[in-house]
């Protein structure tokens, strides 16, 4: 997990940071009254606390990095609508068991464990007509001039036909 960035030193910067923290918490679903509890907490610190709390609520999985664990924890607690359902216990070091259960019930399982199967393309004998067509196609690809001549011959034939019909 990345360490939280240092707190802003100047007063306007710190005020801006606190404003943002409030907005961030509101976006997470916390009511305005509860947001005011964190009125002196800058956004940088808040993010760190949120990650720490989330990782406590959600047990880690094998081969999962700290960053991924924090992201999963955050996602689960927000999907469980914890800030809205338990506003008073939000970021509480000892949350009620039902809160933890609700978070763990939101386990993200996008994929099933794989059971690989072999699915090899089928052999298809396309037969003599397709062979001839395929050969013609190849020839045209190889000799674009030949393709051009064939097209112009066909076009000339069409013009001749029109001439014939109109004249005779």
């Amino acid at each position: 997990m990345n360490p939280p960035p240092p707190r802003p030193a100047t007063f306007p910067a710190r005020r801006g940071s606190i404003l943002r923290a409030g907005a961030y918490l509101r976006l997470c679903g916390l009511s305005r009254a509860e947001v005011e509890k964190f009125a002196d907490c800058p956004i940088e610190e808040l993010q760190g606390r949120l990650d720490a709390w989330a990782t406590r609520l959600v047990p880690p999985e094998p081969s999962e990095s700290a960053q991924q664990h924090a992201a999963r924890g955050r996602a689960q607690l927000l999907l469980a609508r914890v800030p809205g359902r338990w506003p008073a216990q939000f970021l509480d070091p000892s949350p009620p068991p039902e809160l933890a259960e609700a978070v763990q019930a939101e386990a993200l399982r996008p994929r099933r464990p794989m059971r690989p199967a072999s699915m090899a393309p089928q052999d298809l004998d396309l037969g003599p007509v397709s062979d001839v067509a395929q050969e013609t196609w190849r020839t045209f690809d190889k000799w674009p001039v030949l393709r051009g001549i064939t097209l112009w011959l066909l076009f000339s034939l069409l013009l001749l036909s029109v001439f014939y019909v109109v004249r005779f």
Partner: protein
Amino acid sequence: MPTAFQDQFTPERMTRRRVAVLTFVVFVTGVASLLMADLLWGSPLKAWAGLVWLLFTLLFAFVAFGAAHACYGYLVRRRRQRDPCAIGRSLPPGEEATVPLARTAIVMPVYNEPAERIFAGLETIYRSVERTGQLEHFHFFVLSDSTGPDQWVEEELGWARLTSRLGASGRLFYRRRRVNSNKKAGNLADFCRRWGREYRYMVVLDADSIMAGDTIVRLVRLMERNPRAGLIQTAPALARARTLFARTLQFASGMYGPIFQAGLNYWQMGESNYWGHNAIIRLAPFIAHCALPPLPGREPFGGKILSHDFVEAALLRRAGWSVWLAPDLGGSYEELPPTLIDYVGRDRRWCQGNLQHFWLLFARGLHGISRIHFFLGIFAYASSLLWLISLLLGTLLAVGFTRTGLTWLPEPALASLIGHSAHWQAGSLTVLTFILLFLPKVLALADRSCQPDGLAPFGGVGRASIGILLETVVTSLLAPVLMFFHANFVIVTLFGRGVRWTAQRRDGHTTWRDAARAHAGQTIAGIGWLVLLIAYAPALVPWMAPVLAGLLLSIFFSQLTGREGPGQALRRHGLLVTPEERAAPPELRDLETALGTQAAEAPGPTMGRGFFQAVLDPCANALHRALQREHPRQPAGTRRHIQALEEKLLREGPGALRPAERNFLLGDPGAMARLHRAVWTRPRAGLAAVWNQALADIEAASWKDPLPAAATGQLISVPRALFRLAPGGAAGPL
């Protein structure tokens, strides 16, 4: 022990039915062809007349084949016991409970479709299956091939929200392919390779599919009851059309569909076809036999197979598995492209896919009926080119006759044997053609009238009849336009121009500009054709009037039918209504509710959507990161590239990055974590205006009024409730 159904479904019966259909087609076409040959016999332009005759015979046979479906379908549906060879008959209603279910995956391959519609549809199907009490046998998979960064994030959010709402963790899965090789067929094959062995069956859906839980459960039981059945295709009803164009086709499908489907099953039985979705597939034979080989040559004619469904059905059949259509199984729905332009866009892909099947026509080992499916698929588009050629030849012949002063209908004709003239014979041939074209409509009307509820689901006798007349007018004007489009598609495909894989638009309308751009060529061709006829063969103008009217009016027609207003006005008057519109089945009602929920959960304008949301929104960001694989050891060059992209995104906004670059960032959870942190912690000077504006709006809204009670506790819906903007751009009431 063979069941009563298996006793009915015998090779002798199959042969008898196919001979009956063939006899109908050959007899009717033979008579018409003879009359036409006789009329052309006296023409001095023998070669041209011969070509016209050949084209006439081919096209007439195609029309007769369609009419044969309607006739036999009507007869089968009028039997007291319906068709004894329909797969549904293998499982009488009383025996359903005795057939156990098996593990089944319900899979929905998607490609840049609107996430709201995907997950609303899936929610509807999930809840419907849940109501059957058999949910434990089913797993649901969204198999995404989406390439758009916004779609990617929206699909993840949609999946997470739906899983949470349904309590479906471990039952509803989402997988996105980074490289979508082999398109939809490859997407499904990838699922089969990863998870196919876990399930006995797979129900394949489209992004706009809806299936009732009862239907899905019954499909599984039908497969269990028929162990040699490899695939059962349902006949989806069209639903949710709004524009005049889509409502007309929806009405036609609802009115005429049942007898055509019964007619298809009449001769195809266990050698039916696969339409790509709303079907159940037995996975073991599908995995063993249906991986598609590439075709010889390159795209568009060769290469990867586009229309995979026909080929998969043929490969299953080749391996000895039967493929069934279940025409009598309800509870299966799909949607239509809303406008003519969207419809032909889809046809463009289908045309190329079907033309590719030329290679398979002569492939060794395929069943004869599979070849017929391939041929019919090709001919469905090639017939437009042939029709156009035959009309052009007819025009040229008429010009030739006028120039040479020769008579059109030389006497004596065959009709003279019964005391009539050649004109009478030509008129009879025209009447016969019209009978074949209109017979299906009459039979469908008669069939519907004989149903227990009669024509009430279509608005009653009067409105249903007016609906048929309206539909006839619209489809008559549509036919020449489609002829031009399809002929063009066939020619450009043959000349090597392929089609891109694009998402199908499922809502929208046609503007005058769209219509003019799409139909300018047809209008000009219509004008030229009319001028030529007036100058050289004015007598032919009335005969060509339906075709010319379609071409000359194509811009107006496309614009008018591509709007919702006329379609909804007709609906208010009870015209072109279908049973699903008159009394929406529970699944379609649930879908509307689910779409409403999806709309309420969508982020507000401040939050932005998709990629923007994944950077800014705490939940979207955390969720997206949690679903990505980590890249612990990135090369230094990649790291530098990512850092440069991050900085550009923060300083210039998402619009400064190409979709591929946004996808690149989305694929790196570390980058997304840094971006989220930076947007929320950086001083304003270091951020693009778009980020600052969004943050300012969020901050302003946050400290105004209390959160509305309705939004409390709905995390994802909070942004919309909080930051809904009034028309003037100010934050609206909270």
